[in-house]
């Protein structure tokens, strides 16, 4: 079949437009977890390897597909055409085996080098953080500072953060075996599993202050999709200030509703469960050797957090009320029980939570 010239001439243009649209829409949108936009040395090292290998893969892709299309067009059946009856070509086959092997060897060297480089423990100016993964939220301990917080990890910029991923063997809610989770903040580092009974390490670093999105990437059950996290990077001074604030106990609530909330938090008798304090603490400090063991996230400075419930809800009264009423109704798999709170109790608890700063 003959293609009219007019159409044929436009084909490359149409293809180019399509390709540009494809790439454009891939990059233009805001993608906070884009792995191709690293924001620190550890993520950049991985990205460097990608920038080496991906172009090679693209070139090979085009060569092979071009050869395939050429062969199909050039050797298509036409009257009088005879297939050439050859069985192989040893020289060509050896060459075509050697070339990919050499390319792969070329990729292997920097890969192995980077693997070891990223495993090296940073020695200077390190902030240590211990991450414990729960169904379905994150606990962060700062052993050097004696502080604990949850879901939103604060770090200083320009400083390697050595993350100890400590796999707790037993779930603190029901004493069953804890499951595997994976800690991932794509713009700062690759992911690493948190395996019950084992300890893994990764190092991450943020160049600039900002909020970096991440989430659990090892399937962990009902709440897996909603086990998100944030890393908030501050200038070193701002980070120190944040840490001082966190260590400071919240001042006692003054208005009566919040005081009632505090009472409910610590002593409330609810139809379906114990008071909040059974699982949540509001003091962020701890002594070495006496790490916190609460079943739920630490709530110190809760009022200063942007999000709650593993970074899936904005921290607003409108979002807190349904959460306290029945956590499972808004986050499937949440392990906080619906305590059977009255609407007054919910209001009081929210008022109290807003004083935690």
């Amino acid at each position, binding site marked *: 079949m003959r293609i009219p010239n007019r159409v044929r001439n436009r084909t490359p243009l149409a293809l180019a437009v399509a390709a540009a649209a494809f790439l454009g*829409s*891939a990059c233009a*949108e*805001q*993608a*906070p977890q*884009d*792995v191709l936009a690293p924001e620190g040395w550890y*993520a950049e090292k*991985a990205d460097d*390897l*990608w920038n080496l*290998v991906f172009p090679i893969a693209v070139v090979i892709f085009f060569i*092979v*597909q071009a050869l*395939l299309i050429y*062969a*199909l067009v050039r*050797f298509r*059946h036409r009257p009088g055409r*005879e*297939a*050439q*009856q*050859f*069985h*192989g*070509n040893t020289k*060509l*086959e050896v060459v*075509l085996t050697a070339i990919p092997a050499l390319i*792969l060897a070329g*990729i*292997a060297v920097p*890969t*192995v080098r*980077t*693997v070891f480089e*990223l495993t090296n423990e940073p020695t200077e100016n390190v902030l240590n953080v211990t991450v414990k993964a729960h169904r379905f939220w994150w606990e962060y301990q700062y052993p050097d500072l004696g502080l604990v917080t949850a879901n939103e990890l604060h770090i200083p910029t320009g400083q390697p953060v050595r993350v100890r991923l400590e*796999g707790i*063997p037993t779930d603190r809610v029901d004493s*069953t*075996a804890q499951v*595997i989770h*994976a800690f*991932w903040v794509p713009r700062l580092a*690759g*992911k*690493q*599993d948190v395996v019950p*009974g*084992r300890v893994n390490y990764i190092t991450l670093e943020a160049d600039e202050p900002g909020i970096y999105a991440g989430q*659990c*990437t*090892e*399937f962990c*059950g009902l709440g*897996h*999709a909603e086990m998100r996290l944030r890393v908030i990077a501050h200038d070193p001074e701002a980070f120190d200030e944040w840490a001082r604030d966190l260590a400071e106990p919240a001042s006692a609530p003054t208005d009566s509703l919040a005081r009632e909330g505090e009472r409910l938090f610590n002593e409330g008798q609810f139809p379906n469960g114990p008071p909040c304090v059974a699982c949540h603490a509001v003091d962020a400090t701890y002594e070495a050797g006496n790490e916190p063991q609460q079943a739920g996230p630490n709530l110190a400075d809760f009022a200063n957090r942007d999000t709650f419930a593993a970074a899936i809800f904005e921290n607003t009264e409108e979002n807190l009320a349904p959460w306290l009423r029945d956590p499972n109704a808004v986050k*499937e798999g949440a392990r906080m029980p619906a305590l059977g709170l009255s609407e007054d109790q919910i209001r009081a608890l929210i008022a109290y939570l807003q004083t935690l700063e």
Partner: protein
Amino acid sequence: MASAAVPRRGMFARPTAKTGVWGWVTTVDHKKIGIMYGVTAFVFFILGGLEALAIRTQLAAPNQETLSADVYNQFFTMHGLTMIFLVVMPMGTALMNYFIPLMIGARDVAFPRLNALSYWVFLFGGLFLYSSFFLGGAPDGGWFGYAPLSTELPGPGMTFYAVGLQILGVASIAGAVNFIVTIINMRAPGMTFMRLPVFIWMTLVTSFLLLFALPVIAVALFQLMFDRVYEANFFNPAAGGDPLLWQHLFWLFGHPEVYIMILPAMGIVSDILPTFARKPIFGYAAIVFAGIAIGFMGWGVWAHHMFTSGLGPVANSAFALSTMFIAVPTGIKIFNWLGTLWGGDIRFTTPLLFAVGFVAMFVIGGLSGVTHSIVPHDAQQHDTYYVVAHFHYVLFGGAIFGIFAGLYYWWPKVFGRLLSEGLGKLHFWLMIIGFNLAFGPMHIYGLQGMPRRIYTYPDGMGWNFWNLVSTIGAFAIALSVLVFLGNVIVSRRRGEIAGADPWDGRTLEWSIPSPPPEYNFAEIPIVKRRDDWWYTKYTETPEGVPTPVHTGGVDVDDEDEDPGRHIHLPDPSYFPIVAAAGLPVTGYGVIYENPVLIAAGLVVTLLGLFGWVLEPSAEEGH
């Protein structure tokens, strides 16, 4: 039906029906068993596809509520299990069953009743797994079933997983043994190993992989079953168990499993391309040895599924290297397929289109596979949609396209009528476009950080547009499958009569009538060279141009009487289905922790095997 001459052995008179329901239930004919495998696998293909459509509907936009997390988790788990264990593997088995004997010049497989047992165990295992939807919930811990999540998930789902996969494993091991013995022992005279069609070679490699890989997963599944049902602690870290033990066992099976799924498709393509390019395969020895090399190297790459588990830099580097270098034999195959097309006289039939589609898509999956081997970046790609894109390019763009190529290619041999070329081409184009729309964008939103196995995602992550495109692509694939179904229905009645050799084929199956008689070959062929049937039809001029032989070719449709009436074939038997029927009963016994049911199932299986042993494979005197 039963005649007085049939002796009675213990429980049953020997079945004699060759047609009707009982003919199928008691058959030991590899061709009927192959058809049953194919039909069953296709039904599961529809089910797994419907699960995929539900998943894609849920993910079409952010914050959707079509599926709850609970149902979503069951669907993605069952989608994976279905497509792997109930579609790609048994579709391969269907084609192997039907065509191993035809391509090596044999009258049946080595163990016809074992073959029937494989099928019935597979069918019952699949039904057992699917019955979980009605009995408290399907498996919901992923096809990979990582412990301790798989030991902790409530409900019977993951127990169905642990028991169901063990049952399916029995079917695959029995099938593998059967195919290995058949290929080694039952080749026609002169059919030396280096004259075997490539599909047969890849079947042999696949069968060895199955034989060695399935016991590994069987051990892991047995441990998982004990952890779940009998409070063992193989994977419970609080009691000294180790979650990584599961991962090592699972992937030591799981990676060879990938090659178990792809090698048969590579074999199919390696036989289709020469047929329609009308020239011999380029570098037969290289393509065979590359397949064998993949079979061996496939055992040394499992930990690349565990690069983020914390194995340490030495292990990660070692497995990065092995993973990179398994690309070498894979590359050899791709170059050889190109070489096969090169200089050919290419006929654009539907089987050729699917085979070419396989090559084109598999290249993409292979290249993204190489990008997984750069460990530090794999830590970014791992468990994102980038990986989902990769393995669908390998297992759908690869294995499923290869299987459809095989179905279109061999359909006329099995049913005597060709599938419609027009509908076939429509099927191909719809499927390859839908496939690329569905899975191509997954590369993008995977690299934009979208993890796998999440039932929902928030707005503002940059994932919305391409997820919608993926969903549209998924429905286009579904449409293409409907076109295939329509093609099957139309062609059963009105398809062009195929004759023995509609494609001017190269291998022995085209030398006998379509559909083949029960005994396959009236006379066992004597094989003189590779592509023997082609060279029976053509000689080459000194310039290498094929010239039809006027005296050599036999017009096989021209038989005036039944030449096979004196050929002894194995007789039908009730015992394979009886022995198979006990296994799911035992399985339900484990699910419900009911020792009586466990014992009852074992008794049924044992009685079935007992009757089997006492029964000769063929009755005398007919």
